[in-house]
């Protein structure tokens, strides 16, 4: 873990923004050269998948479980400018549970409205099966933008700010229509957008001539099953213990439900470098 992470811990303003709005924009999360590298890796994976699936250049491409496909994707799981904010919002008992590469190319000429809205909260069944209200967060995603998304109409990520505590805000039969407060998140290339999985959000059509490229990294508590098959074990013999934790590795018999220190090396690292008080919230509850 890079000690430079300590320069990017969650600020109070960021915490309040995330808790109130359900999302948070961090610009310049990735420098341009890193964006270039990631874009090259993503293009390669995307081209392969598109060919394998027989997709046209106009089809939206979504590749889950992509972290194991290129070492450059591995670098983002503990990215110094981002991971400290994840643990600031979730504590130390975390893992990657889902990753998602999404390319939204320009719409086919004459067919611009082909992508309907699909408003949703993340995670599928847990939204039905947790009977309490408001439902807990369980997970959040960090979306890295590898292309500019500064104007509306560029396949923007749309959200309803503050909707993460409104469990059943949009009825099932109304999810193809924008609610009143629908807002496009306008960000430059290299930005990271954090969002609470409960935030109501949707993809949108791309009316521009630029393919929108985004990488989603989902972090959850370790007692949640991964949504991906987590095809990452080939990394295990050459990564540090914190990365192993983040990729879902556990050591002891009940390491997911009742973790021991060796299951969660991130905890000791944070406590040693940032201080025990940084994690006090997750001990006092």
């Amino acid at each position: 873990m890079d000690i430079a992470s300590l320069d990017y811990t969650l600020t109070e303003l960021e915490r309040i923004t995330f808790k109130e709005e359900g999302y948070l924009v961090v610009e310049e999360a990735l420098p341009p050269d890193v964006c270039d590298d990631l874009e090259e890796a993503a293009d390669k994976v995307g081209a392969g998948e598109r060919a394998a699936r027989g997709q046209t250049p106009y089809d939206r491409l979504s590749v889950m479980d992509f972290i194991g496909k290129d070492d450059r994707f591995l670098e983002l799981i503990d990215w110094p400018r981002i991971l400290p904010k994840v643990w600031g919002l979730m504590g130390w008992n975390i893992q990657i549970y889902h990753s998602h590469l999404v390319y939204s190319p320009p719409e086919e000429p004459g067919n611009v409205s082909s992508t309907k809205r699909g408003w949703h909260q993340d995670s599928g069944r847990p939204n039905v099966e947790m009977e309490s209200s408001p439902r807990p967060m369980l997970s959040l995603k960090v979306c890295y933008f590898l292309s500019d998304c500064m104007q509306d109409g560029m396949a923007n990520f749309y959200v309803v700010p503050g909707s993460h505590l409104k469990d059943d805000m949009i009825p099932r039969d109304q999810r193809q229509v924008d609610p009143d407060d629908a807002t496009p998140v306008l960000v430059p290339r290299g930005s990271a957008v954090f969002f609470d999985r409960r935030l109501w959000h949707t993809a949108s059509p791309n009316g521009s001539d630029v393919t929108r490229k985004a990488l989603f990294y989902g972090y959850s508590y370790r007692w949640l099953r991964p949504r991906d098959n987590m095809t990452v074990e080939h990394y295990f013999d050459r990564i540090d213990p914190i990365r192993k934790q983040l990729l879902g590795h556990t050591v002891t018999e009940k390491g997911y439900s009742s973790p021991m220190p060796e299951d969660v090396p991130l905890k000791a690292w944070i406590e040693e470098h940032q201080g025990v008080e940084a994690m006090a919230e997750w001990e006092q509850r």
Partner: protein
Amino acid sequence: MDVWKEHLLTAEEQKGFETDGYFLVENALSAGHVVRLCEAMDRCETEARDAKGGEAEKRLNQHDLIERDPSFMDMIDLPTTFPKVWGLMGWNIHLFHTQMVITPPHTQERIEKRLGWHQDNNRMNKDFETSIMSHPRVSMKVAYFLSDTREVGRANFYIVPGSHISGGVQFANEDDLMPEGALPTQVKPGDALFFDRRLWHAASANVTDVERRVLFYGYSYRWLQTKSNMDLAHLYDQADPIRRQLLGHATSGNGRFSPLEEDVPLREWIRENLGEEAVAA
């Protein structure tokens, strides 16, 4: 499985579970079944104590029973209880924990201190950021009592009814040993106690001459990790589709969150037997 329809969750049981966090099903196991399970427990106890070098007079807490005896496997979809489990939780469930506890006679002197009150699932309770009064259920357990605990002092399972949604346990005075509303469950061999994982509960000392035995079967949604690393994939071939689901089978990780039909054969069984409405949620 037709027999499942004779043991569906009743409205009274559902209300008890939602309001009090538990209910009791008397005689869930026949006397003969209790004897057979006790024999399996004997074998399991010998193995476990040999392996751990455990002392026979100490409490034995053994997890992961499924592979230890065929009779433990047969409990996962027991006709007298399993229909009530999916009646409470729906069809997207699996087994996330199994445990047997043997509390020998006079395991502990009556100690003048508080019991180990807790909710199940450990870290989850600290990781939820919502108020404790609105934590979700996520999992539940069925406790099968194989010994007579109708008298107090026999390592009774203590609970605080209603504490699953009331925000925890309260001690009226600083030196009180029991929280307000606490009671020992007093049940006979063969009875099954269903309880919400959020219900505050505690083990207690056995101060009598009667050994206490109990089996716990924990069911959760399929998106929850199992409590211990119970990888039962090698048993899928010999199990029927619904058992396979309960043992943890999924077509992919995504199949636990957005299940396909083949992920959840239990849904199809319920649909066929009770109608579409029963699986609508």
